[in-house]
């Protein structure tokens, strides 16, 4: 899952990390066998996710009424969520809903800090986004930097009348003044935690899991 990870050094939401020295924002455990064990908790199951998407679809209709909306998913999992939402919206409102994909990689503010990323699909529905109600869809809202990048990308595609944000999970720890209009589930998390969203389209299963790092024995001894 591609997910922005905030610097543990505690920034005050500065948007220009390219000027800063590289920060190791990963847990200090090398990937591989000797990683710390962690507690995995399933937060949402298959039925929960389906219900959540139904609810968000109703909320989008409630908020925007008969005015058509364009759903733009942020790759990878945001696109699948947007497609599911569009499907539900079409079922509830009885008319098709435009759905597309918006890759934000080229708009990220941390491109210098990570090896080049593979770009994902961008597909703006025919007719463009000018004067439309655009709902951005993503799986996890965390630092807010992905959404900032999405807003920048969207601006280069046109001038929507309104931009709203729908996320399956809001895990807090925002680094930018950004909030979601539609939230599937609020999950309070700590910095070492990770929220993993799995969707059947690519993961063969529908679930949202919270992975919480178990303090190592050394840390526990140090505390006692």
């Amino acid at each position: 899952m591609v997910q922005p990870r905030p610097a543990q050094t505690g920034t005050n939401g500065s948007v220009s990390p390219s000027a800063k020295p590289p920060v190791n924002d990963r847990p200090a455990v090398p990937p591989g066998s000797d990683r710390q064990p962690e507690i995995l908790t399933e937060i949402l199951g298959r039925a929960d996710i389906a219900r959540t998407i139904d609810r968000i679809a109703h909320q989008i209709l409630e908020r925007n009424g008969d005015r058509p909306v364009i759903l733009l998913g942020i790759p990878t999992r945001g696109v699948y969520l947007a497609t599911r939402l569009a499907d539900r919206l079409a079922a509830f409102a009885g008319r098709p809903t435009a759905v597309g994909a918006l890759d934000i990689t080229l708009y990220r503010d941390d491109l210098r800090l990570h090896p080049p990323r593979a770009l994902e699909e961008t597909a703006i529905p025919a007719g463009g986004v000018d004067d439309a109600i655009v709902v951005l869809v993503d799986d996890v809202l965390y630092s807010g930097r992905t959404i900032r990048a999405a807003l920048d990308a969207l601006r280069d595609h046109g001038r929507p009348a309104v931009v709203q944000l729908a996320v399956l999970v809001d895990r807090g720890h925002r680094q930018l003044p950004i909030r979601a209009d539609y939230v599937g589930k609020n999950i309070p998390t700590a910095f070492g935690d990770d929220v993993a969203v799995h969707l059947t389209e690519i993961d063969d299963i529908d679930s949202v899991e919270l992975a919480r790092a178990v303090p190592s024995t050394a840390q526990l001894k140090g505390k006692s």
Partner: protein
Amino acid sequence: MTTAIHPATAAGPVTHGPTPIRMPRHLLSAADLNRSTAEHVLSTAERIEQAIAGREVRKLPTLRGRTVVNLFFEDSTRTRISFELAAKRLSADVITFSAKGSSVSKGESLKDTAWTLQAMGADAVVCRHSSSGAPHQLSAWVDGHVINAGDGTHEHPTQALLDAYTLRRHLGSLDGRRIVVVGDVLHSRVARSNVLLLSTLGAEVTLVAPPTLLPVGVDAWPVTVSYDLDAALAGADAVMMLRVQRERMSGAFFPTAREYSRSYGLDERRRALIAPHGIVLHPGPMNRGMEITPQVADGAGSVIVEQVANGVTVRMAVLYLLLSGEMSGGLA
């Protein structure tokens, strides 16, 4: 809710997305790219094209604040403009330096020029030079990433990438595709880079040229060599015509232009020999009437203009991939 304790495995949280592809530090030769890296560059170019298709603002903020220096010691129109546009579309600052009207005409050496660039802090240097190996030399003297934009009769890797990109758009995968490269192979850096890249991507390349215009050691290249253009063209998926480089020819390589054109030029009759889905490429600038007739150059199946447009996209991909991730600890 189910709770379980178990060690983090591959199914555990992924902290950094897909495995990054290792780009070389400099792009000096098409041989710097293995198959997965080359395909990564081409698919990145596809995504970039997708991202800016149909937009009013055809600019991306990706390389904001970075400096790209175009260092052109040899004349060029499309490559220089293409690199300049690519860097500008990614919001980099671009300085174009051509040897004419610079201190080079006062006798400054390549090394002194390199030190000047170094002092100015160029993040990338795009170098075109009439001497083979000049970009390679340069890469030892500057900290920035060096991109070879054509060096003597050696290589022109971004041209090969844009040709491969154009071929892939029309033919899909290049695996087993038969591509005929015709003309002045001896003086052609485009041919060298294309042979390397296209064979890396799985294509079968046939070179057709008069024996005088084939380089020494061509039998060691991963290609088939033929002197019979009609036979080589039969059923080919693409034909790439090379420019006859008069400016690099010191001797008599063929009797007359007319004879060359009769034996190795592409006219409508020969155009009809390639597969129905086949396409015609030319890296430009063309000698119309010499290696290619105007009817073929402007006719059906000719993708020569499209090659120029694709050049910008592919060079954007190269700049993005070379210049991002610089601070990630040597993976860039």
